[in-house]
């Protein structure tokens, strides 16, 4: 995996791995418990895999949970066609290296109607290429449980969500009527057509994710590390300018600078940050003094307070 791992990090990890500290160990144990419970109770689980850092951690935990067996469910990547090229390369590498079953889904309507983030605006684009697409993929696979890497510290409506988040046959979430979820006893009883979204990383924070990636030496997409990259400034965000489909608008200029990404999604909607963090230590240090939340770089979350809840009610992850 040397080609997808940051070099500085590879050096850093030459020494044998010390045991996890109690804080990370507790989070890991909880996540593994959830993985095993869902795999045992549901007929057709699937794991949403978005290639980002949270997905990387989620995948690592799944491999740990079922070791020495194989991960007993497929990974589902809801692709939009607008991901960073490095993300797709990374994904294909991981799937091969870890012997995983990957299902990729792109909303055919999006392709047919030429839905792009530029022509349709971020809200409608996300609705069609992510929310609708996810529903299509889950219906097609008749999945009754879908693992996701969402964390409660990401956003105020996520903070309210159960670890087993119940969904109606049309994938709706009813935040006012969630099942009580006591202790670590999860209620997995559903009727035909209903499903749950299961969130093993519910209680992790962003810093926990990075510290775990470091402690466990988990490969991540190199875009998280600072490097000189081309970008343009648009709507107050630095948008990566390497994909030929990105057309410069009047007044925009292609620039170069040392930047990195705190979250990864569709490149036209994901803003970079200026940073010199080239190692995991740097990233963690940067995070511990960060003054803005990670969601800030995402166009789709900035529409209004409560926009995430609305999307989730409609079936967004």
């Amino acid at each position, binding site marked *: 995996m040397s080609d997808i791992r940051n070099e500085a990090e590879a050096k850093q990890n030459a020494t044998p791995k010390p045991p996890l500290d109690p804080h990370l160990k507790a989070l890991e144990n909880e996540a593994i418990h959830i993985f095993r419970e869902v795999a045992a109770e549901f007929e057709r689980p699937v794991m949403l895999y978005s290639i980002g850092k949270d997905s990387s951690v989620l995948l690592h935990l799944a491999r740990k949970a079922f070791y020495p067996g194989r991960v007993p469910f497929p990974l589902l990547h809801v692709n939009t066609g607008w991901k960073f090229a490095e993300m797709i390369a990374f994904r294909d590498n991981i799937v091969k290296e870890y012997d995983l079953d990957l299902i990729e889904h792109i909303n055919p309507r999006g392709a047919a109607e030429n839905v792009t983030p530029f022509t349709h605006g971020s809200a409608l684009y996300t609705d069609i290429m992510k929310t609708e697409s996810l529903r299509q993929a889950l219906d097609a696979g008749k999945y009754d449980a879908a693992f996701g890497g969402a964390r*409660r510290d990401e956003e*105020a409506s996520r903070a309210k969500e159960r670890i087993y988040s119940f969904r109606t046959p049309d994938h709706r979430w009813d935040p006012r009527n969630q099942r009580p979820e006591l202790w670590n006893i999860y209620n997995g009883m559903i009727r035909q057509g209903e499903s749950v979204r299961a969130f093993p990383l519910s209680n992790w924070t962003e810093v926990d994710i990075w510290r775990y990636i470091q402690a466990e030496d988990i490969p991540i997409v190199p875009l998280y590390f600072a490097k000189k990259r081309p970008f343009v400034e648009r709507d107050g965000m630095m948008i990566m300018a390497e994909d030929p489909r990105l057309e410069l608008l009047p007044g925009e200029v292609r620039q170069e600078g040392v930047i990195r990404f705190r979250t990864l999604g569709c490149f036209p909607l994901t803003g970079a940050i200026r940073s010199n963090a080239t190692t995991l230590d740097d990233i963690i240090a940067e995070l511990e003094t960060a003054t803005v939340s990670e969601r800030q770089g995402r166009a789709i979350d900035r529409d209004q307070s409560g926009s995430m809840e609305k999307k989730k009610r409609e079936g967004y992850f």
Partner: protein
Amino acid sequence: MTVSATATAEVLPIEAPAAEQARAIRDSRPLRLITCGSVDDGKSTLIGRLLWDTKAVKEDQAATLHRDSGKQNDLGLPDFALLLDGLQAEREQGITIDVAYRYFSTDRRSFIVADTPGHEQYTRNMATGASTADLAVLLVDARAGILEQTRRHATIASLMGIRQFVLAVNKIDLTNYERARFLEIVHDFKEFALTLGVTQITAIPMSALKGENVVYDGRASMPWYDGPTLVETLEKATTRSNQTVGFRLPVQRVSRPGESFRGYQGTVAGGSVKPGDSVVVLPSGMVANVTKIVTFDLVRNAAVAGDAITLVLDRQVDVSRGDMIVAIDSQPMTGRGFDAQIVALQPEGIEPGKRYWLKSGSRRQRVLIEPVSQLDLKTSKWSTAERLGMNAIGKVHLAFDEQAIFDTYEQNRTTGAFILIDPDTNNTVAGGMITGRRSELGGIHKDDQRVLLSLPADLAEKIMASELFASRRQDVDIRHTTAGRAAEILGDLDE
């Protein structure tokens, strides 16, 4: 120092070097706590204030908060509760509906805090938060004092095994920081807490809104109080674990990646285990020895409560999901009748004679609930009850079709806990805590006439679902087995 009225999200320089600070935080598991108490006593505001003063609120979130706060209160402070009340319905109505989990840390420790709703209607969400908490912060409005809802929450928290309480006498700013009023409320609460058996109480006069005695002390306005702030109290609180009791492994799944490997996967729910230990598989009672504890990283030489492991035994025994592997010299209770306390969580309440699903650990089985008594929150007395309504706290008998396996909740917060699921709606309708095993099956006398029937499982299931059967459940003995074994047993009787 008190927080000034011009609180902003600016990041203050960190006092300890980052690396050192991080190390201190991670030396222990996070402390899990809940805020509870009646509506409007300031629970959400308090957690919002905690997040704010521990710098867990980032600039963009602060900007959103300022924008959403609209017209601010007289003090010019934002509405901190909006950091917690994240659902649209909550923001519209200005109340908390469901529990929110938030994360923050000081330079000593990290915390997971559950903000729970005060309305009686949403008690189920409060119970959800309480079930995993190590400590409860019980809020009281200094002007209103102890209310019925305060008692309900204190009672549920204590039933669910919380032993550490902080009594936060909030909105003290609205009583002119009056010491006498504070002492009066503390006295009232301590008297009530005695009936619950709760003795670890730290009482703190507080203004959640102004941030007095939350993270920063309130000496400027309350020179008469020289006790700890809320955060100081939280930093010293203890987390609980099941490490000192007997080994328990509820089996979640059996891992059989190939012919040569068979491992039992689950999370250790009590005690510890190491290779060479003798264990018993329940309910079958088969004995084996542990040969290996397998994890992804390495083969381990021990595992303790909380660890998610894969256990390998030295011989072929029949183990499946829902079974429990336990220490041979310290076994849990097994039987078909148990006593428990439950909290009814849904509008339909708990109906006598109805067959619910009970889930505990990885084990799910049918159970008949017989309510015995209900707690009257006004008088703190138990009175007989035939059914339990929504939010009722009751004592019940549990009658199982098959062997059940439990510890008391007192001894083990994992193997003594269960939920009830309504088979008609699939919803979780109660949370329960085992208090003991029922010694004798009611009604069975040695010389009474009995009939042994051997039935196909599906037919037996139908008969057991009938009203008549349910009403006499206590008189019946049931075992599941194979047709061959049943024929053998009946054959034995004929001889």
